[in-house]
């Protein structure tokens, strides 16, 4: 009990503890949040993230059950394991939230994103873009003599690498949907 002796007067260290208590490893998790599709529900979820200082790396939302008015929000977020745990619990507190699934923690999952990629160019570059698109299984959904719009689905990483390859070949615009994800198996 000697360690409990109270120190009188000044102490050697600062009054303030400026260390970030969360400075551990950052991990990325994909969450599926099933919500009541009511006005303002997305604002509630987004407000929770901004209000509590959590990250949103990707977010998609759509009604998935029209009769039950349920929407599925897929969020890719990053933070320390403690923060990820808090995010799930804070989401679970929202009255409009039915369920929160941590797809990263619950086992293997399939993640897909859709992207539209506009590439403009002539001659060799144009041919090269088309050749690469074939390798990546991107489809041409619009073409002019000087441009293509490719459509591709895949993991965010696959879209990243395709977009990187297109950059020197005349990448003009990129539109991405954000990640949709489901757990594997039944």
């Amino acid at each position, binding site marked *: 009990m000697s360690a409990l002796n109270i*120190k009188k*007067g*000044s*102490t050697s260290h600062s009054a303030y*503890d400026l260390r970030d208590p969360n400075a551990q490893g950052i991990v990325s998790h994909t969450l599926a949040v099933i919500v009541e599709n009511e006005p303002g529900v997305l*604002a509630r979820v987004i407000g929770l993230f901004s209000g509590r200082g959590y990250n949103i790396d990707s977010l998609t939302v759509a009604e998935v059950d029209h009769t039950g008015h349920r929407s599925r929000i897929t969020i890719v977020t990053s933070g320390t394991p403690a923060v990820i745990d808090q995010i799930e*619990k804070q989401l679970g507190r929202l*009255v409009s939230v039915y369920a929160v699934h941590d797809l990263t923690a619950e086992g293997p999952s399939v993640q897909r994103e859709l992207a539209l990629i506009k590439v403009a160019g002539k001659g060799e570059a144009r041919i090269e873009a088309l050749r690469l698109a074939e390798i990546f299984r991107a489809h041409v959904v619009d073409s002019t003599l000087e441009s293509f719009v490719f459509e591709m689905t895949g993991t965010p990483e696959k879209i990243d690498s395709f977009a990187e390859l297109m950059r020197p070949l005349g990448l003009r615009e990129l539109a991405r949907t954000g990640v949709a994800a489901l757990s594997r198996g039944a």
Partner: protein
Amino acid sequence: MTKAMTGARMVVQALKDQGVEVVFGYPGGAVLPIYDEIFQQNDIRHILVRHEQGAIHMAEGYARSTGKVGVALVTSGPGATNAVTGLTDALMDSIPLVVLSGQVPTFMIGTDGFQEADTVGITRPCTKHNWLVKDTAKLAETIHQAFHVARSGRPGPVLIDIPKDVQFATSDYTPIPKARVDHYQPRVKGDIDAITRMVEMLETAERPLFYTGGGVINSGTAASQLLCEFVEATGFPITSTLMGLGAYPASGKHWLGMLGMHGLYEANLAMHGCDLMLNIGARFDDRITGRIADFSPRSAKVHVDIDPSSINKVIRVDLGIIGDVGHVLEDALRIWKARGRKVNKEGLAKWWKQIKEWQAVKCLGYTGSDKVIKPQYALERLEALTKGMDRYITTEVGQHQMWAAQFLGFEGPNRWMTSGGLGTMGYGLPASIGVQVAHPEALVINVAGEASWLMNMQEMGTAMQFRTPVKQFILNNERLGMVRQWQELLHGERYSSSWSESLPDFVKLAEAFGCKGIKCSDPKDLDDAIMEMLRYDGPVIFDCLVEKHENCFPMIPSGKPHNEMLMGNADTQGAIKAAGAVLV
């Protein structure tokens, strides 16, 4: 059988069906139809406040002192924005409220109409949940859902925004049993295996400590009784947060007093030195933990909370139990008895011996005076002269609040109303009115600081109009005392704007409101003056002139561990280095 009626009538009907007896509110264009309905009935009493913030704090005082849901009614735009501080306060302290706000008609929403504000947008982060009702057919059901959400799980404030056309339109009324509430059913029973594990831990602990919070009060009076039974039966010491005072009686022999930034020496050192911490309905607020890394470093930690997000939010615990405190305590007590009521007797005896030594330090000691009233002395006398009375205490925020927590004893739950989480100056006066409305015969005292009190002093008009004999006991140090204390300790005694300049004459102010004013500055007159206040049948403003530069001790400076508490003025020299005023 359903009945057709206007939205405005539905509001009143739904409130009646929910058992509401009183609504605190303020009218305006967007709620006129509801006020018209209130006018035409006698079951629900309407208390006309003087500012919407007052309405919310009154509803909080009412809720906290009764365990019921508090109800407030405000108009659109400024009425709703004035409610925001109160809503945030209630959210932080988990107070169940239903707030109804008027809104411009649905067809005008989004046009920047007169007194239009995005009320659901503004109040989304400061309510547990909120609704904009655009269809009269859904109004009654929404109100019933609102009551359910406000009181279920971890309680909190909810808001329903009702456009004026929805109040005028007619539809069928949805009675309570038909309202859909099944989607929100928080878990109340704790996991039995986990509770058994907790019992095992407490059977062998050498230095156990109950650390209880507002969750015990929220769980209801039965939870407080179970807690007392548990404490008496085990013989464990118990401390509590500011919000939890009264759940275990201050006269109980296991009571260590409040812990935290201005908590008692023995409570904080027990927290620092315990080997088993039983957190029952508290949330490891930073006012409690001090520096996280050094918080109760040698203890196994058990945390019982109805809100899963509270567990492991700030402090990682060894055992989390999600459930209502009352249910969990009941199960724990039953299991502990069935297993033979075991405790570690030797360990406990040694532990108490140590605690007794800490108690002998008498950390609340202060230098008395026969010339000037010490604030601590004023509270000691108030405590002595009101002991045994049917007494409710509210407070404002500042030094006086901490002294009240240290020097007043609470023998039961729901008797202590203070703004803990948000620390809202201006809470105490309206809260005292709300308490008095709920308990017309009781003695209700607001222990106030002069600066806080001024923030909602207009509510004295409400107190007069509705004959609530609230006693405003103002510890007047002519300072924003708590700010001044921090400036003294942290900012080189540079007292930047922490004076209360140009204060009103409180006795004349009382006369202006039509109530009684008492001024006291001599310790010798204090008892008589307090008795005069207690005997007066009506609201009193008591201007108690106290020592101006008294500091509130013990104090754990922000970011310090519990065993680096400052005990008195002698301790403060150079104790806190101004290494950047980042923590509050």
